[in-house]
């Protein structure tokens, strides 16, 4: 147990170092881009004094090394600065948008993994049949299809042509949710979530399906499964009680990793569906040359990915006593 805590402390320390490197890269990447980042926000009628005030307001009048020290110091205090575009703190803006990304990710991930596990089991059981071949091809196609294309197809078919689902946002035109609870309990919200969620689901289900199928092949060759077959147990009981329970271990850890990696899909899906989450905020920040917000969004995504990596590692050692940290 003390070994486990030592491992966790070591990994947390490594995470901090990696985050510091990422923060440094982000800082220099945006500041070394050509031009004045405030050109988009300086009115041509501003005189030099007014421009200097604006530069001072955003801390851009100081030397680069000073800006860097302030930036790293602020990050430790969870202060990511002020958005050029909104004039609000980056943290406030990300706090508003992060829940939408989490709802989309968690909904799609859970659905994808439940589906992937069962479908992977089925494919393994039907090994060698036409069903398995078709299932494999379908899974690979859905996994490799570009997400923006899948998103646009679903949008055109289900929203514009069939008018079954809304095309953008989290609510109907005249509705503004008072709080997150009202949002989550509103059928309107789930209707809006469906298409972006389905798009992400189509992409995500590929990994657990193929992983589960592959793990099942490994497990089904084990002696205890053969023993269960010889004892005359039913097909379903062998599949679920004996084989799947052992094959599922790597799936559990990939779920944790999946939260991190699905962030990459969210950027595209959120922009196609105008889903107001972290991914859309990130793209808008880059387009608007809103460097503090872009930095903050990138950094938050990095934190989530590293954190979920750590959870995945710990989870695996908890689920499988044969694996020690």
């Amino acid at each position: 147990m003390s070994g486990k805590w030592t491992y966790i402390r070591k990994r947390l320390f490594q995470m901090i170092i990696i985050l510091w490197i990422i923060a440094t890269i982000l800082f220099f990447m945006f500041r070394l881009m050509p031009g004045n980042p405030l050109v988009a926000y300086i009115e041509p009628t501003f005189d030099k004094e007014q421009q200097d005030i604006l530069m001072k307001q955003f801390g851009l009048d100081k030397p680069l090394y000073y800006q860097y020290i302030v930036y790293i110091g602020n990050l430790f205090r969870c202060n990511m600065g002020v958005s050029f575009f909104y004039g609000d703190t980056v943290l406030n803006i990300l706090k508003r948008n992060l829940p939408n990304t989490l709802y989309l990710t968690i909904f799609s991930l859970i659905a994808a993994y439940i589906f992937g596990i069962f479908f992977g089991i089925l494919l393994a059981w039907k090994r060698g049949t036409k069903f398995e071949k078709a299932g494999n091809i379908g899974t690979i196609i859905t996994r490799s299809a570009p997400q923006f294309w899948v998103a646009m197809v679903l949008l055109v078919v289900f929203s514009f042509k069939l008018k079954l689902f809304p095309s953008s946002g989290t609510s109907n035109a005249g509705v503004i949710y008072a709080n997150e609870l009202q949002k989550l309990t509103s059928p309107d919200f789930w209707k809006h979530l469906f298409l972006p969620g389905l798009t992400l689901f189509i992409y995500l289900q590929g990994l657990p399906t193929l992983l589960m199928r592959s793990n099942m092949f490994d497990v089904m060759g084990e002696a205890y499964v053969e023993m269960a077959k010889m004892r005359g147990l039913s097909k379903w009981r062998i599949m679920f009680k004996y084989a799947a329970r052992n094959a599922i271990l790597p799936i559990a850890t990939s779920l944790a990793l999946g939260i991190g990696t699905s962030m990459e899909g969210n950027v595209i899906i959120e922009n196609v569906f105008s889903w107001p989450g972290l991914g859309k905020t990130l793209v808008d920040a880059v387009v608007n040359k809103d460097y503090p917000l872009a930095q903050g969004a990138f950094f938050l995504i990095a934190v989530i990915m590293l954190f979920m990596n750590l959870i995945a590692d710990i989870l695996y050692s908890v689920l499988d006593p044969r694996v020690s940290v």
Partner: protein
Amino acid sequence: MKKIFSILLVVVVVAMLTTLSVCSSSSSGSRVIRKIPVITEPQTEDACQFETTKLLVDAMKSLGINAELITMPWTKLGDEIWFNRDKWDITAWSFGIRPERLDPQEFIFNVFHSSTAKDGYNFEGYINPEYDKVAEEQRKTIDKNKRQALVKKAQEILANDVPILFCNNPMQQFVYNTEVFDSNSVVDMPGLGILNYWTFININPIGNVKDIILNSVEDFKAINPFYLGGIADGWAAELIFDRVMRLGADSLPKPYAAKSVEWTSDTECKIVLRQDMAFTDGVKVTADDVKFSYEVPLLTDKSPAFKPFVSDIDTIQKVDDYTLIIKLKQPSASFETSCLSKMPIAPKHIWEPIVKKLEGKTDTLETITRLDKNLLVGSGPFKFVGWQQNEKVIMEANKNHFEVPKVDKWICIINGNMESTLGMIQSGDINFLSQFMGDGSLLKEKVDAAGNLKMASTTSIGANFFAMNNRRAPFDDVAFRRAIAAVLDRQAIVDIVWKGFAVPNDSIISPNLTFWKNTDLKYPSGGLKEAKKILKDAGYEWDKEGRLLYPKGKIETLKSNY
């Protein structure tokens, strides 16, 4: 030994010749005009500007000019052109649509008067004392017909001097759903199109849907009476905050929050406010609010974006609760448009404490960006209901306004995906397409196929052009500028690049401002033949390789900086 010496000699000669040819492309000491970088935004940022610039570069090459297309992202381009005025040669540029540009003052004076050449809108550095006189005169000529003659004269001078290459005025396309709205209630303003204040007030819903649902590409930044936010912020601010005057459907200013605006002299006007106006928190609108709203940018540094609009004001005197007298420093023909119709009336009881808190600090009112009901209190025809970041803004009709809108709500949906937006207007998720950055011909196709949609196109008052740096040779020579203007095929640009959704222009004044536009301009547009004639007459020549040479006695002394 001999062989080695010969090889060395050849190498040295080749090196010398190469060095000479490299030097001749920069500051050569010869008559060959140096390489001219033509700057534009990249294709991904502005495809039309990029393609237009390619056509200009080809046109310049046909004259023997060594022109080269250089792309820069906007953050760098804006910086270079605005703050390094001695460095660049020629750049693509455009002026956007702002209602105050319906008055010619902004373009005629701010863009071309010599006083703004150092750090203002005259970034091309055009200096002409004769022009300055005309621009100054029109600025203070109150008589409309006399002013018209001066504005036309100014355009004549510009058409002759060609300080910038006029190109075109883009057309704006708007679409609305005819099953939702009565077409007769949509108001088309010259220069602005149907997306204007009067449409928002008068548009009449005829079906079950009682709200106007429009779109914006960009999220709302700040709806603030002391800050010029983004485009969508401007729409909302116009509806939440009243103005003393408004530009009518004919684009001319008329009293609005004011019962009357009376000019007692060329520099003094008496404003009598309506007495039936109140802010949405119940507090009555009085002369104190108007005085406060104008004095914040005038007397403090807390509203820098609005300062230029009040810069002509000398004093504001409150006579009684509903009467003000504004004295100007000098007569200003555009005052009603650029100030009285522009400045929002902010509630003093809400904003004065905020201004006081900022005293002594470098922060301005532009840092007040929160979109909240308690702050966004105005007296306008709509009141702010709520904002969902990156998603929508909702406003509802103010039933206590003297001009109650016919719709119940004004809802703006944020969607940066143009394909999705096109689908939304077809499916009815939005019923008024207010911003479309995609292919105009595709939009027209979809509208024609839909049956329940109507498209309204208008030539905008914004302009696309190329600014030539009049400070740097050869652009300091009128003949050279006229030759470039002659060889640039503006109609081809409209046909090829804009697919017909723009109008070629020979002036900074948009063709649909019919009262101000001079239609008798002798702008050079005779193609390559005319361009070559202009250059020959000015003493330019071509060498054996077809390269354009300065007139005899003049050599290239500058170098390309990009």
